[in-house]
């Protein structure tokens, strides 16, 4: 040890700090200076040291030795802080809990810190949305850079320079880190993974690039429309392939930079994940859903989370409301029972989803189907018959009928069930005619993405994007994601949107690729229809948007949707039935059960809603029709392309490839192939 050196440091530090301070005081626009930091640590020694370090960084420091207190500070002055640094282990409140609250309520960047450097804990911090994780002892060098997280967080809203590194880094990161647990498996999870890594990688570059001027730049306001565009773009690209640069190109919004998109993408993924986590905690209903599903199926739980997240992301539906919606949907499904057997209920679910989706819905449906596939892997209690019902509904649709027959041969009961769905929704049939071809669903996806650009369905677009992303990401997770996506889309109630831009866009843009993807999904989705949950989520989301309309509307819509959904599924169903159905059925059953249990509390409501569905108010039907009409148009355009089994096959193959190992695990390949022949 060179004493001289340390001595020098000792004396020098004073000088240097004073110098820097002077400059900081003198230049008010010296960005990092004055950063408002809230530091939380129950350890007084650490807290004092951190405070001093942060002050030496010229930050404005507020310290709290309790998480609860810190949360109060934040709530009292929501705009009073730029970033939060929190210890992980605290007696009154777990640091992760605080992290959750902050993420939900203030959306501030949170840095976690702990002497615990175990991978598990660090990962937990990351998955909970921490922007960084500092191992104690924290060094001032690390604190000098924390302002980057603030800038990064705000980049979405700021117009900045093009941030190329972000994109590339993300890509690399995505592939680098495989999901560790169920949470990770979801695309959203991937996002979180990316985020932390990205940040680290980007920090250096960001430091230099992000000068004070960045803060002064006008914010990029991610309006609903803009977000929809963003989602659409992501959807179009697929989550795993959604690179900021490409998203930016797709969005084609003047003034928007890759940096904006990159940060928004990051935020979007994080948000999804966070929401899922939060939603679970917040709403018992959600928990019920999630809980049962989670227990049985890892993927399912994630799906639920995704749905919730999506909804939350869309902002239309509060997590709680979503939960309620979901519950209601579940309840309805359960209740509707009276006239409709269990199978019917399931059908209803599926129906609901289709209705909600419409143009975009179709995409959602596709997503759902994918989810379903994922679910297939999961064992469920559902009976084949129920599946059949789902299929039946699909059959009710033009093409579906053919499929139904095949299916029906498989299970007589199923056939009967299917008939019921049909009767329920004449409108659906009409729709089906247009949709006929479930193909529409795939078409719908492209449309959706296109529509998003048009800005019609920002939310929907977002949802779609999510769905797409999920699908592309990992099938297991994607399955969940898909369900979520549909939900979000529904929430968006992009029906109108779909109809508006959807058709034209599709045709003009020739979203064939997307369509293909959706188609791919559809086959998968057949089974997914069973994923009542997913559908329900979607419905819920729609309900939200429709809030005024009420559950009744949703129901009717659902029925309509069902029709459309049914169509696509029918085709798929035929192909995949044997293998998928079994697994899916079982999965579905379990899921449905969970849902049911959840919904019981709300059964009263649900039952009523179920009835409403049957009656399907004129308004609803009308709406549905309108929606359908757009879809029809889409379908027509799409159909030609989609119809070919070969195309579907290829699409499926492509999807599978994109999906990667995960998908293969699900057995999608096998399913798809089987289905295709049919």
């Amino acid at each position, binding site marked *: *040890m060179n004493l001289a050196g340390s001595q020098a440091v*000792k004396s020098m530090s004073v000088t240097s700090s004073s110098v820097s301070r002077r400059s900081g005081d003198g230049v008010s626009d010296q960005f990092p200076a004055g950063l408002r930091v809230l530091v939380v640590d129950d350890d007084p020694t650490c807290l*004092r*040291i951190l405070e001093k370090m942060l002050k030496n960084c010229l930050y404005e420091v507020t310290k709290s030795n309790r998480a609860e207190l810190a949360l109060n500070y934040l709530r009292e002055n929501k705009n009073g802080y730029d970033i939060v640094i929190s210890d992980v282990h605290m007696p009154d409140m777990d640091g992760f809990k605080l992290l959750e609250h902050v993420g939900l309520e203030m959306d501030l960047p949170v840095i976690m810190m702990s002497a615990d450097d175990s991978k598990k804990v660090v990962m937990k911090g990351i998955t909970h949305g921490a922007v960084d994780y500092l191992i104690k*002892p924290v060094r001032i060098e690390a604190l000098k850079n924390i302002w980057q997280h603030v800038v990064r967080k705000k980049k979405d809203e700021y117009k900045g320079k093009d941030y190329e590194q972000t994109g590339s880094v993300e890509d690399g990161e995505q592939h680098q880190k495989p999901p560790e647990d169920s949470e990770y498996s979801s695309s959203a999870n991937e996002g979180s993974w990316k985020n932390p890594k990205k940040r680290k990688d980007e920090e250096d570059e960001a430091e230099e690039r992000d000068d004070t001027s960045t803060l002064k730049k006008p914010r990029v306001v991610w309006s609903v429309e803009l977000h929809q565009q963003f989602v659409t773009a992501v959807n179009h690209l697929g989550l795993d392939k959604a690179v900021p640069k490409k998203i930016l190109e797709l969005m084609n919004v003047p003034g928007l930079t890759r940096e904006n998109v990159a940060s928004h993408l990051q935020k979007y993924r994080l948000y999804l994940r966070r929401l899922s986590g939060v939603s679970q905690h917040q709403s018992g209903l959600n928990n019920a859903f999630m809980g049962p599903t989670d227990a049985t199926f890892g993927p399912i739980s994630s799906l639920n989370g995704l749905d919730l997240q999506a909804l939350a992301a869309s902002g239309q539906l509060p997590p709680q409301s979503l939960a309620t919606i979901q519950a209601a949907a579940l309840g309805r499904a359960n209740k509707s029972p009276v006239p409709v057997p269990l199978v019917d209920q399931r059908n209803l679910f599926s129906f609901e989803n289709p209705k909600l989706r419409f143009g975009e819905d179709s995409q959602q449906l596709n997503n759902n189907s994918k989810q379903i596939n994922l679910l297939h892997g999961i064992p469920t209690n559902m009976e084949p018959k129920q599946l059949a019902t789902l299929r039946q509904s699909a059959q009710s649709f033009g093409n579906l009928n053919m499929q139904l027959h095949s299916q029906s041969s498989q299970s007589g009961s199923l056939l009967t069930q299917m008939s019921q769905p049909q009767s329920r929704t004449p409108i659906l049939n009409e729709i089906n005619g247009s949709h006929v071809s479930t193909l529409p669903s795939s078409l719908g996806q492209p449309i959706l993405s296109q529509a998003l650009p048009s800005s019609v369905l920002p939310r929907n677009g977002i949802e779609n994007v999510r769905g797409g992303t999920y699908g592309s990401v990992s099938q297991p997770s994607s399955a969940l994601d898909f369900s979520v996506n549909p939900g979000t889309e529904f929430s968006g109630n992009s029906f109108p949107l779909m109809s508006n831009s959807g058709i034209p866009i599709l045709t003009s843009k020739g979203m064939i690729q997307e369509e293909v993807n959706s188609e791919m999904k559809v086959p998968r989705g057949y089974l997914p229809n069973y994923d009542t949950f997913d559908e329900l989520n979607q419905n819920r989301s729609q309900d939200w948007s429709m809030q005024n309309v009420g559950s009744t509307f949703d129901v009717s819509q659902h029925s309509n949707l069902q029709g459309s959904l049914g169509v696509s599924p029918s085709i798929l169903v035929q192909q995949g039935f044997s293998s998928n159905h079994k697994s899916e059925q079982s999965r579905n059953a379990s899921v449905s059960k969970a849902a049911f249990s959840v919904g019981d509390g709300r059964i009263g409501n649900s039952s009523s809603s179920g009835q409403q569905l049957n009656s399907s108010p004129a308004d609803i039907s009308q709406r549905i029709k309108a929606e359908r009409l757009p879809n029809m148009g889409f379908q027509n355009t799409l159909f030609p392309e989609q119809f070919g089994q070969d195309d579907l096959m290829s699409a499926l193959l492509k999807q599978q490839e994109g999906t990667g190992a995960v998908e293969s695990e699900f057995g999608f390949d096998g399913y798809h192939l089987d289905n295709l022949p049919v």
Partner: protein
Amino acid sequence: MERNLHKQLGNMKKSLFDQGYLDEQFIQLEELQDEANPNFVEEVVTLYYRDSARLIQNIEQTLENNPLDFAKLDNYMHQFKGSSCSIGAKKLKNECTQFREHCKTGNGDGCKRTFQQLKKEYAALKKKLEHYFQVP
């Protein structure tokens, strides 16, 4: 005169480092000292000893329980480790790590043995740092 003091301080610090009592985190704390907090390190060390005494006591009491609550011990020791490493108390930090290893393996004797050693180091460091801070 001043030179001598510097030299004396330097020597003391050097020995603290050479003997493994402290690590670079301690230097970091010294670097934080400025006109606003000229005695920052001393302040922090005082804070550390005041707060950690409570933890030491808690651990001691918990070690008297039978059977040992390793989760609790580990939790306490985690806190103690966080504080210790924050002031650069290298030896203590190492003892903490050792202690937690014993907790992990359920080695009660190891925990007690390590804790005795930890307390010894804890006191020794305190003495040395007090001496160090006494140098003007």
